[in-house]
């Protein structure tokens, strides 16, 4: 038996204390950590089960916002009426990911903290700087169809695999965390990080910190949103490229644009300067192309994934068209509007 300790704390403070121990890992839905342990990619000494913590609710916040408890299952979040009415972009992004069974088990906090699906990360017989720092990156020069084209480093070209997080990035969510020094709030854009020289760190969570909630301020974009995901089969596959868009439009003018990309980087990818190009402008395909180019500035393939740069450009343009038209991509119909 792989002897690891298991703890199921009842309070956030206790959980934080346990998670501060070296070799401690959190488990909630277990849809990712268990796989990682089976394959030897994670070998925790202590598994801290968070499910007894009081983080199972979706709460109203001031101004029509919502606070999504970290332990609410992805499915319950997507099907919560308040979420699907106020943040349909988020609901659709969640439902574009995984399978019904996985979404029932996976939690919101776990979705943020899931790890990359890079083949080399999972195969302990191969080099991976994220799993075994200093061993090299197998994906560079290797099989890298699903890998990143933006924000990569010489150390790592892994992507963050979440769909939900792409929507959360576009919605300017905030991640509430509780740690040994109390609570802090992290802007969503600062939560995940780029690999840089230390790909072993996926995010900026410190040892002992627990995600307690994801807060969303009201963002009324009417029907001017979409989540468009391209993948290697029509369901149950991680995104090759996905894009979440929320626009505020006044008459013929875009007032505010939020655009986040998935499947292309170590974190959901946003470029606020590119979004700003849309503000105060009338929608127009040429403008969309300019925006896409700006978002993808510096994008670079690594062989198998070269196509992602052009694909991402086209997906952004198409999705902007969908959002402007107020015809969000539906999940049930795989035809892309």
């Amino acid at each position, binding site marked *: *038996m792989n002897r690891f300790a298991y703890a199921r704390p009842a309070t956030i403070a206790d959980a934080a204390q346990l998670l501060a121990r070296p070799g401690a890992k959190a488990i909630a839905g277990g849809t990712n950590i268990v796989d990682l342990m089976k394959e030897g990619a994670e070998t925790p000494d202590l598994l801290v089960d968070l499910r007894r913590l009081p983080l199972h609710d979706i709460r109203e916040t001031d101004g029509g916002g919502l606070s999504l408890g970290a332990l609410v299952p992805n499915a319950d979040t997507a099907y919560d009426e308040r979420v699907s009415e106020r943040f349909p972009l988020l609901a659709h992004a969640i439902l574009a990911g995984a399978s019904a069974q996985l979404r029932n088990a996976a939690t919101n906090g776990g979705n943020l903290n899931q790890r990359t699906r890079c*083949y080399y990360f999972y195969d302990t017989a191969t080099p991976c700087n994220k799993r075994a720092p200093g061993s090299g990156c197998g994906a560079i*020069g290797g099989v890298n169809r699903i890998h990143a084209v933006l924000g990569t480093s010489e150390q790592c070209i892994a992507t963050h695999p979440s769909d939900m997080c792409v929507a959360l990035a576009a919605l300017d969510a905030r991640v509430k965390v509780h740690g040994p020094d109390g609570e802090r709030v992290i802007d969503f854009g600062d939560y995940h990080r780029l690999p840089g020289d230390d790909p072993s760190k996926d995010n900026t969570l410190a040892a002992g910190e627990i995600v307690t909630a994801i807060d969303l301020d009201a963002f009324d974009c009417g029907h001017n949103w979409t989540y468009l995901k*391209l993948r290697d*089969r029509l369901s149950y*596959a991680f995104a090759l490229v996905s894009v979440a868009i929320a626009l505020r439009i006044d008459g013929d003018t875009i007032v505010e644009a939020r655009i986040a990309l998935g499947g292309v980087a170590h974190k959901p990818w946003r470029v606020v300067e590119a979004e700003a190009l849309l503000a105060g402008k009338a929608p127009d395909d040429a403008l969309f192309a300019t925006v896409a180019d700006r978002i993808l500035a510096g994008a670079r393939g690594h062989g198998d994934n070269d196509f992602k740069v052009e694909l991402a450009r086209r997906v952004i343009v198409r999705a902007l068209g969908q959002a402007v038209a107020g015809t969000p991509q539906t999940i049930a119909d795989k035809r*892309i509007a």
Partner: protein
Amino acid sequence: MATALSSPTSRIGDPLSRVDGRLKTTGLANYAADFPVEGLTYGVVVSAAITKGRITAIDATAARAAPGVIEIVTHENRPDVVDKDKVWQDMVAPKGSPFRPLGDAEIRFAQQPVALVVADTFEAARHAATLVDIRYEAASHVTDLTEAEAGAYNPKGDGTYSPEKSRSDLANPLGNTKAHVEKVYQEAAHRVSGRYTLAPEHHNPMELFASTAIWKPDGSLFIHDKTQGAQNSATYLAGIFGLKPEQVHVVAPFMGGGFGVGLRPQYQLFLAAIAAKMIERPVKVVMTRQQMFSHQYRPNVIYDIAIAADQAGRLQAIRSDCVGATSRFETFAENIVDWCARGYRCDNIALDYRVAPVDTYTPGSMRAPGAATALNLFEIAMDELAYEVGIDPLELRLVNYTSKDEISGQPFTSKALDKAYAEGAERFGWSKRVHAPRAMTDGRELVGWGMATGVWETLFQAHAVRARLRPDGVLEVATASADIGTGTYTIMTQIASEEMGMPVDRIDAQLGDSTLPKAPVEGGSWGAASIGNALVLACTALKAKLLKAARKIDDSPLANAAIEQVEFVGGQIRVKNDPARAIDLTDLVTTEGGPIEVEETGSPKMLEAAKKARNTHQAVFVEVKVDEQLGQIRVTRVVTAVAAGRIINPKTARSQILGGVVMGIGMALHEETMMDHRLGRFMNHNLAEYHVPAHADIADIDVIFVDEPDHEVNPLGIKGLGEIGIVGTAAAVANAIFHATGVRVRDLPITSDRLL
């Protein structure tokens, strides 16, 4: 004692639901790893971390010290076994020296099993497996077929490839005509040539390979195995362990998918047996999903095709030249290059097939081995030729239609492919197709209609079948073959029911047990025809034996009845023209005081028309809708018309074709095991990243079985359906994509990036 009839009888042609359906859906069907065994221990395989080289040291100290660990089996400490190639060659082994798990220190392929950790619990074994410290000396490897191609050789070893038999009326005998074929090709009005490729595919049945080995006090061996051939596993182990064949008993009643990967014994079988011998306790070994990528796969190929036609589209020359992957220790060869030359009329043919050794495990048969590779690529070339000539792709097939096997010259026992073309095209609405690519749209999407032809062999293998009427009134029909999920139990029940006039619930079909009457592995689509015909022989013999017994009863109402004068109806034998004169079969067996049984063997010798070609065909029509800008491909409609002789059960038959078509769609769009050639390792070795179609990828599939009476192929006129659904389907998808987009892709799978 008369048994009340509680269920109806069934006949060939009835859509009888699977007789094992309830067991499977309620979890009562035990698969290989499901059987509870007293005192069971658990073996976990340690897989090699390198692709080629040697093990220089194994330090199992930490693993041995882990709680619950019983033994660490390696090449260094395993008991001796027979080492001759001959015993390691299972019934369907290709030429060569089979891999011996834990045979020696040499590493021949990535994830090769290098140790088996056995413990009291699965969890303990799995953990200790991570503690076995193995040192290697790596050697350089080659896994890239384009690199290995230089070392390709003819699998027959004679330097040139030629089909088994050649047509005598050809102007240029086959196999020696390259220059002539090239000349004809160059002079022809229309030409297509190119290099076509297929990626490596892994079978990925849902059920993982699993074996439990139990050594009995008398020195015999009992095995639960996942296999398409219980007797193959049994003779394999008997040879290796120096036992008599009857000393090894293998049971495998159900299979969670095979697709050919269960034809040969996999390494968990030997590992369970050797470990159980060492520790003198039962051992169960189950592979991980990752390890399912460590053995057989459908070999990737490089297929060079050149075809030429005259103005009317009549084929003038075919060059069919293929290199497929094999391992360094066995020569796995498939019939790939012949299919095109057999199926179309053409006088100038040059065929060449070679295999190139790479540092992987030996590839193996996967659903329609050879034909699926060949025709799903060649039928793309045929579509190209149709556009080159400027005629409808279906018309091109009709122009080149042949009623004989164009290599052997033999006529077919039946070939209703023409009907299949017609009925499939009609149902699909093919006549409304606009020939030009990019001419059909639906909103933003481009619409493409493509078609292709599929061909598979109608094979027949010797099978012995036992029919036994038990004192409880149940009719057992049994052979050592397998139901690999296709419905063999069900069709055996139907045929026995019809032959014996017995209700379905009084028939007990038995398969998957090496002690049952002799049968080969279950594959090649030969099961239904071979077992079905042998079963009829057995039932016929049983009827005679039953009548004989019935006549001997005191005051028998059948005392003077001849076999032609009686009929078997409702669990009785009765006189046809005087049904009141009857004997209940259960009463008869009870009177006899024991079961009445017969065993009969059906063999290819029973076939008439030995000199005829036997094939199944499909004409498959596919609609795709393509979002060209984003490269998204949707298969929105499939119509396939299948000509496969007599259909025993339209319900299970349709399921077989649906499965084949879905797999064909996967071959076209999804399935690809991606190799890192630097590491010599398949990287997407899990079902999250090795994509097979999901429900969303599959829309309407309309299966037509065309009428194809065949009194020559075998007495029942059955042809088999396991493979035909995949053959041509991927090409039809590829051709539909061309029709939609004008983009011709010659490499499968066609992932979205190929259209960007």
